[in-house]
């Protein structure tokens, strides 16, 4: 996703607490890679979150995504905040809190169903 947005000309900053994950970024990545936790206010400040137009939380853990996304939305007032929530029931809950959630479980199930019905 960072690669796609970067290639489209957006200013991208990517946060991860595992330095190895940055190895997947392409060599011509023009954005910023920060070794910081996204559930940490100081880490987010370093990423200049106050200037961000959008914040996307896509770690493998629902709880981390939900916490980071809520900090971005409620503490830093980022206009657009999207988070990945695998648990479909919990995705509904976070939407009731004003977050935009995407559940890969639901999306994938729908895709499979469409494919089967074709």
């Amino acid at each position, binding site marked *: 996703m960072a690669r796609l947005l970067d290639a489209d000309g957006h200013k991208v900053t990517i946060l991860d607490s595992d330095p190895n994950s940055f190895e997947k970024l392409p060599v011509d990545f023009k954005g910023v890679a920060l070794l910081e936790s996204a559930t940490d*206010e*100081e880490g987010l400040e370093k990423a200049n979150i106050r200037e961000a137009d959008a914040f996307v939380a896509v770690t493998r853990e*629902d*709880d981390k995504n*939900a916490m980071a996304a*809520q900090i971005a939305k*409620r*503490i830093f007032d980022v206009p657009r905040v999207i988070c990945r929530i695998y648990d479909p*029931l*919990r995705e509904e809950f976070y939407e009731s809190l004003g977050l935009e959630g995407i559940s890969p479980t639901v999306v994938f199930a729908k895709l499979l169903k469409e494919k089967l019905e074709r």
Partner: protein
Amino acid sequence: MYIILLGGGEVGYYLCRELLDMGHEVLLIEKDAIKCEHFKEELGSVILCGDGCEMAVLTKAGITRADMFVAVTDEDDDNLAATQIAKQKFNVPQVIARINKPKDERIFVKLGIEHTVNAAALILENIKAQTAIFPLVRLLSFKEKGLELFLVKVLGAPLADKRVVELALPSGSEVPLLIRQGGELVVPDLRTILEIGDQFICLIPSEGEAMLKAIVS
């Protein structure tokens, strides 16, 4: 009372045993299957094996009839997620979260979880209470009521030899009790003068904390 505990670490296990001993109905939710087997042998059928941040697991735990939900895993994001769901989705009357990273306490409050227990902060207050170097010890926070209860120690200037009524405490403060060095208990009145070695209880509105700090040091 029906109490659901999340997280079968040392804290969760201890709470589970103590609360059971007090006669409460308790359910401990733990992710790790091996730990669960071990707990079941020891504590019986008060263990539910599963991810306590998942709606399905919480429903199975009977969260709709829980009187209290306590999240004590060693991951703050899990504790936040579970307590938010317990409070905001299932309306559990009492919800308490353990804080592992001290700076997360502020975030939890902003995200609607006022009642937290922060071990690092408790240890610090305990050190302050046990030594005669620090004038101010936080005893309790009544976050919902916006009040803080402090113990103030008279170590010398600027408090010593002042009348209690002369202290420029934040408005709405109360000093209900003074403990003299020898252990004598005094309810302060207009004439009460502070002496070195005295300690007094002080209840202040939360927003007056900085003011109290400035007065005592």
